[in-house]
């Protein structure tokens, strides 16, 4: 992780303090002018609209394709997958590259979609909330959609509540996403363990 942070700092140094044009906001014709819901749901950049379909596509790929079956098999029991003729290491690297790609797009969105500037360490540890999200979703991409709205909403909500002048301490509001993460992990922890892939975190010692 720290290698990535350092690398991004090295490559990104010339971009600090420079405005970025960023992604354009796309208004969905008609729907965008609905009061309250319109601006909330239909005035965003392309990546925001792509987020839900990507999660659905991930679910489809994991549970409805041969490749997804291989990924899940390697996760549960790489030895069995190996015996069935799959190369666990190849599958693991494919999954790793894909996950890294998606996480990279998510991080890039902070810069080119939200802030439209770049600064070192601007993800500010948001990726760790993704770990809580995986536990919350119990390794199920469709549930992760709901979880992402919940966690993302909590981060945004505390700023929105302050802007609306709600009389709650900013310190308490700032805790919101983290308290939520902890609560979810504590409440679902037991079930989460059952949902986690059986060989998660174990190194496959096979041949290929």
């Amino acid at each position, binding site marked *: 992780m720290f290698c990535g942070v350092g690398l991004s700092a090295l490559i990104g140094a010339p971009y*600090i303090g420079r405005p970025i044009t960023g992604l354009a906001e796309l208004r969905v014709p008609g729907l965008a002018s609905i009061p309250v819901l319109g601006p909330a749901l239909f005035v965003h950049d392309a990546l925001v609209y792509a987020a839900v379909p990507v999660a659905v596509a991930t679910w489809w790929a994991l549970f409805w394709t041969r490749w997804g079956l291989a990924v899940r098999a390697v996760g549960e029991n790489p030895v069995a997958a190996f015996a069935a003729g799959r190369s666990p290491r190849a599958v693991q690297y494919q999954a790793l590259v894909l996950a890294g790609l998606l996480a990279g797009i998510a991080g890039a969105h*902070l810069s080119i979609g939200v*802030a439209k500037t770049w600064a070192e360490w601007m993800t500010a540890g948001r990726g760790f909330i993704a770990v809580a999200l995986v536990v919350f979703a119990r390794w199920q991409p469709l549930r992760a959609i709901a979880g992402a709205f919940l966690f993302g909403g909590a981060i945004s909500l505390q700023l929105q509540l302050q802007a*609306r002048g709600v009389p709650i301490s900013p310190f308490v509001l700032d805790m919101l996403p983290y308290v939520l993460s902890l609560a979810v992990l504590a409440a679902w922890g037991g079930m989460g363990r059952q949902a986690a892939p059986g060989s998660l975190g174990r190194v496959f010692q096979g041949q290929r």
Partner: protein
Amino acid sequence: MNARAIVTTLVTALLVCTGVAPAQPKLIVGILHVGSITDAGYNQAHADGIQAMKRNLPEVEVIEVENVPEGADAERVMESMIKRGARLIIPASFGYLEPALRVAQRYPEVKFAHPGGYKRVPNLTTYWASTPEGFYLLGMAAGKVTKTNKIGYVVALPISFFLANINAFELGARSVNPKAETRLVFTGTFLDPAKEATAATALLDQGADVLGVIVDSPITVVQTAEKRGAYSVGYHYLGAQKFAPNGWISGIAFTWGNLYTRFARQVLDGSFKSENILGSLGDDLLAIAPFGPAVPADAASLVNAKRQEFIGGRAHPFQGPLKDNTGVERVKAGEVFPLTDLGKMNWLVEGVVGQPR
């Protein structure tokens, strides 16, 4: 060739040789930045100061390190600067105070200058500039420019010095526009552009048409305001208006160049002493950025007149009677809240929408 010519030639050769040999710099200055020196904010103000010092004193060499975490890393960076010959260290972040004090005690021959520090040792001096008067002036300009009478402020943390700035800002705005209201959003951190953008957008959605900012880099907030056609006021650095050519009102900025030059000269001539330097509008440590096109001429002259009153000591930003935003009287009529007590200002003045803790 007579004897005289030979001597002249030898002397010339000697002079040429000593001239060519790498001259030892008279002084090496080390500066640590907590963020990036191109942030158009807190860090760039310090970096610009050190550049100005280099222009004034070309014989001084500078070791500059960016993005140094506050803590043990800062100590290591300072020690390595000292090993490379630095005799003046500027740990340019509030959080470097404790590491700097520890290093200062280990190396009594090295001098240190710390911004905003509240503790000193014989070889560590502290400096800062008083900002409430400047914020009062920005408030006046913003109060004149706002059409919705709502000003949004994105602030890192509710610490007393920031609350004092916000209070002064709101009092300045009210002095020219009794309906002006300042709304606060605390982001909880000095650098998180994504949160700052979200906070800025939330404030604009609540009807604010002027945005201000107290985080390390004003870029995100100023730029967000500009994109939405709103106005903005800056802080820390004079060059921030390039991010808002239309909506820029003004900003207050630290200009550390002359101070850093003085520090370097003092180390060179041995007159360096530990003191608590507090700059103000009247000296060369603090500047008001040029007004943007949004500020009408009468507002600009009002602000300039008030500025002269502050400099002359004829006005005070916290002149009583003052009530806080829960209705409690905080400063009695005829009294002022002393600027030396800003560390105790744990309330927000009437007209500010926000929670002080």
